[in-house]
């Protein structure tokens, strides 16, 4: 049961971590405009000012072609090969950061169209495509996780319901006598509902321990992997509130399972059977 509870919570944690990462990247979404090769530095600076004056733009940076070549030389390690080129093949580049308000999908698209129309711009590139794909994947995953959570919650209810059903069968005589001497239905049900809630509590605690253990187990490798990708991605553990909510939800599920079992099996036990 702890496993059934731990699984969806673990997936949710992974998703939340992923969403955190993509949100961080989205804010860094930038539009890159490559100018035509025959555009000179002065014209490029004029363009920079023109774009900067647009209200949708928060910042524009001009990377001049010489500077770009120098950076490429360092980062690519093609130092000697580049010496063979007769001229610099790289254009001037404008790195454009949109305002927060223009950072929606439609806003960015509008911006791209506006820059694309400029005469001296050769090509506009937006790094949004893969981001949208990641977002789509996380959204799909999150729905899948919710569906899975519902299924597993139902499984928890059934497991506890079955446990309580067995408890009811074991204590059948006691229930009969209690009903016979004037025990109300709620009096007879109460201990079983408590049993269900306690089982839920136990399951929640087990789930929490499993989660913490597997996070601790996974975190080292994940940090190394994220380091290799130069990402600050890390798996967030359960907060205190989250752990508390997990245990409360588990208790409610346990109580619910017990309630179902009690409804289905205990009300059948009628003292008329013995007299």
């Amino acid at each position, binding site marked *: 049961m702890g496993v059934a509870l731990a699984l969806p919570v673990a997936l949710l944690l992974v998703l939340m971590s992923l969403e955190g990462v993509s949100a961080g990247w989205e804010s860094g979404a930038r539009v890159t405009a490559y100018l035509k090769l025959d555009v000179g530095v002065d014209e490029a600076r004029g363009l920079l000012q023109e774009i900067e004056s647009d209200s949708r733009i928060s910042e524009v940076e001009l990377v001049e072609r010489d500077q770009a070549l120098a950076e490429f030389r360092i980062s690519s390690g093609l130092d000697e090969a580049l010496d063979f080129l007769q001229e610099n093949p790289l254009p001037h580049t404008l790195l454009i950061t949109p305002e927060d308000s223009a950072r929606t999908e439609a806003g960015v698209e509008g911006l791209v169209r506006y820059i694309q129309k400029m005469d001296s711009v050769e090509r506009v590139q937006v790094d949004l495509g893969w981001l949208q794909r990641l977002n789509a994947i996380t959204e799909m995953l999150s729905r899948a996780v919710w569906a899975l959570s519902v299924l597993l919650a139902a499984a928890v209810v059934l497991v506890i319901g079955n446990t309580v059903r067995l408890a009811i069968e074991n204590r059948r005589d006691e229930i009969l*006598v*209690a009903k016979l001497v004037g025990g109300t239905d709620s009096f007879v049900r109460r201990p079983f509902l408590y049993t269900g809630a306690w089982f839920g509590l136990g399951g929640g605690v087990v789930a929490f321990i499993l989660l913490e253990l597997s996070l601790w187990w996974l975190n080292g490798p994940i940090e190394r992997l994220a380091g290799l990708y130069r990402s600050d991605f890390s798996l967030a553990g359960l907060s205190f509130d989250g752990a508390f909510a997990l245990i409360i939800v588990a208790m409610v599920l346990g109580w619910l399972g017990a309630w179902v079992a009690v409804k289905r099996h205990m009300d059948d036990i009628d003292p008329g059977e013995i*007299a």
Partner: protein
Amino acid sequence: MIEFRQVTKRYDSDHTALRQVNFALDRGELAFLTGHSGAGKSTLLKLVMVMERPSAGEVVVGGQLLNRLPRRQIPYIRRHIGVVFQNHQLLFDRTVFDNVAMPLEVTGASPSDIGRRVRAALDKVGLLSKEKMNPMQLSGGEQQRVGIARAVVNKPPLLLADEPTGNLDPELSADIMNLFGQFSQVGVTVLIATHDIALVNEMNRRTLTLDHGRLVAGGSPLMGV
């Protein structure tokens, strides 16, 4: 205390357990209910305990008409009725004390109150020294007396017994009948279903006799008192 007015109980279309039964029992009265097996003794007791509902007629217990009593109210009626069974229905997973305490526990009585009243009931049936034993360790007669202690522990105004002496030898049976006699003397209405005719004759009390669901003797409240 108990009143049956033209009570009929039909189980299936072809099986009628009770036919137009009329009788009334007063407070403090002790009566026997006899008849061959299948004559309807158990059905009559079940109607009093609201384990069954009559098909026709009216059942009144303690001034309350039971016919249309809501299900939720049934436990409160049962708290005023003590029942002794032939197979005593004791729980073997707990002590004699805890068995007798059950009717008080369902009412939410305080532990000190429960202790006092359980010991009083056990004292009355002469088993105070065995309160910590498991009912399994007791003899048949003792088990039956534990059952009686449980039935009277919350001082119900009405005591029903279904074949309370069924498995006991005559001497023990007489003991138990004497106990019932004592309860009726303090105002408890006692109705004992039995087919032990010898015992019934010996006690010389009012006797309701059922034959194929019909009350053939003892129906008038004044007869045999």
